[in-house]
């Protein structure tokens, strides 16, 4: 478990303290994928670097499995860092070393000298990330997605229990992003690794994260299960992120529908409710008419969800809402 207690960070610039992160407390559980989303400058790079102490907090306490990170001496900190893998937006591979040597690098840093053991581990990691054929290439000869796979293999070399992802897909095209995220999800599932990722894309959070914290100007403004935050964003910054992920839906904004007659409702289905024909049944039973204004059915990680914006008319609307809620559908009225 990663535990932040009253952690804050400010930078000293020209004799003045510039706050980067306001005091916050946060727990990240073992084996979960935890996303931190924020615009650039919100403090997410600083936050993720507090975990392996690439940035030292100005105050507060950072505990990893009960170990107070800020109290560690140099050698102990280096030993702890070997248990925390990290991947980066720009990959940060050694350009003078081959793929295999890049992956072997953390093993050698940790003092492994047995060439046979190193090779066996490197081969295993190459297979995991699907780069068996590229062992003797140099980073410059690889595509962005392949470079990130090397980064992931390197991060996993010392069998860490935590993997930090610093905008790991931000420099990749959408297809490559999807395949890298899939690999991360697979690693999380199979190795039971805790993953902490920072991103500015809600879509990344939606695809792989279990929980998310939204960071705005150095402050965690909202956090919780991705489905809750994603379907019911409260803070304006969260809304903006959700809107980016759901452009046609406009996530519950009333503005485009003010001229539409009837009551404007937003229905959220989650899990099994997504697959039941509740809406049609309720409409038949209560005699209401509805008109779909916007909608989407997708997944949040492994959870299917649907979100429909409807205009509903007729005398039985109140009755319909009760029936829909009874079927496990969450409803918000946008024009009430």
């Amino acid at each position: 478990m990663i535990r932040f207690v009253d952690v804050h960070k400010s930078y000293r610039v020209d004799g003045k303290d510039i706050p980067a992160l306001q005091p916050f407390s946060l727990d990240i559980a073992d084996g979960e994928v935890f996303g931190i989303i924020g615009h650039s400058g919100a403090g997410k790079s600083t936050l993720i670097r507090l975990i392996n102490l690439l940035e030292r907090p100005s105050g507060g306490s950072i505990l990893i499995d009960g170990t107070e990170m800020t109290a560690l001496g140099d050698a102990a900190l280096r030993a702890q860092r070997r248990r925390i893998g990290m991947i980066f937006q720009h990959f940060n591979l050694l350009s003078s070393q081959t793929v295999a040597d890049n992956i072997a690098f953390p093993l050698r840093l940790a003092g492994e000298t047995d060439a046979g053991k190193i090779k066996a581990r490197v081969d295993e990691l190459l297979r995991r990330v699907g780069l068996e054929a590229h062992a003797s290439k140099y980073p410059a000869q690889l595509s962005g997605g392949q470079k990130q796979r090397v980064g992931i293999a390197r991060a996993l070399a010392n069998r860490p229990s935590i993997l930090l992802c610093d905008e790991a897909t931000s420099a990749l095209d959408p297809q490559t992003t999807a395949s890298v995220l899939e690999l991360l999800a697979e690693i999380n599932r199979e190795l039971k690794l805790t993953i902490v990722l920072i991103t500015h894309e809600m879509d990344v959070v939606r695809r792989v994260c279990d929980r998310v914290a939204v960071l705005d100007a150095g402050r965690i403004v909202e956090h919780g299960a991705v489905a809750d935050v994603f379907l019911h964003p409260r803070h304006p910054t969260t809304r903006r992120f959700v809107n980016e992920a759901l452009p046609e839906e406009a996530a519950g904004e009333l503005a485009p529908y003010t001229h539409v007659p009837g009551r404007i409702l937003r229905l959220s289905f989650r899990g099994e409710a997504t697959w039941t024909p509740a809406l049609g049944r309720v409409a038949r039973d209560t005699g209401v008419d509805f008109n779909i204004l916007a909608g989407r059915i997708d997944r949040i990680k492994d959870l299917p969800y649907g979100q429909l914006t409807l205009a509903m008319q007729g005398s039985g609307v109140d009755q319909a809402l009760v029936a829909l809620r009874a079927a496990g559908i969450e409803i918000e009225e946008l024009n009430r």
Partner: protein
Amino acid sequence: MSAPLLQSLFPNIDDWAELGHACIDTLLMLGGSLALTVLIGLPLGVLLYLTGKGQLREMPKLYAALSLVVNILRSIPFIILMIVLMPLTYVLVGTKLGIRGAIPPLVIGAAPFFARLVETALREVQRGVIEASQAMGASTWQIVRHVLLPEARGGLIAGTTVTAIALVGYTAMGGAIGAGGLGDLAYRYGYLSYKSDYMFVTVVLLIVLVQLLQMVGDRVVARFAGNRQ
């Protein structure tokens, strides 16, 4: 080229063997001083880099002190540095003359210059790569040895070439005050005795030497640079 032809082209050069010796002396001075310059300048450059602002081992006072010494040594014209250092040279190698006497001032003159080139080359290494190594639990020494030096080797080799060429110039200057080598011949015969053919031949030899050094340096850089972004 036959001996009579050489005789007619360069009438004042009566002892070609002396010229050959001078060449060898220059090469020995160059080789010896370059090796020592790299040996001293490389760690000095690494230290300058590490203690610099915002770097791994930021130490503003040490950096300022090192920087000052380097700047002072670099701002003294080499011929004056050589004269100033004569007592020290005598203490270090037991003579002020010849190849041995030339090497201490050559090294003291060139090492600070090389150290600056090393510092500049190391600054070109991407910060992210260093950060990634820190995140992997690398110590400062491991980062220097396994990240900074290999990643910067193109720049380091180019810096060595530039330094070697600067040293060729220094050895020639050293010739004027008793170091021997091609500079000595050019100065004694070419300048003091008006034998312009000596001047011509030594200058041509120096040009050839510099060209060779640059070519070799560029080749080596290209070999290592082939795999890089």
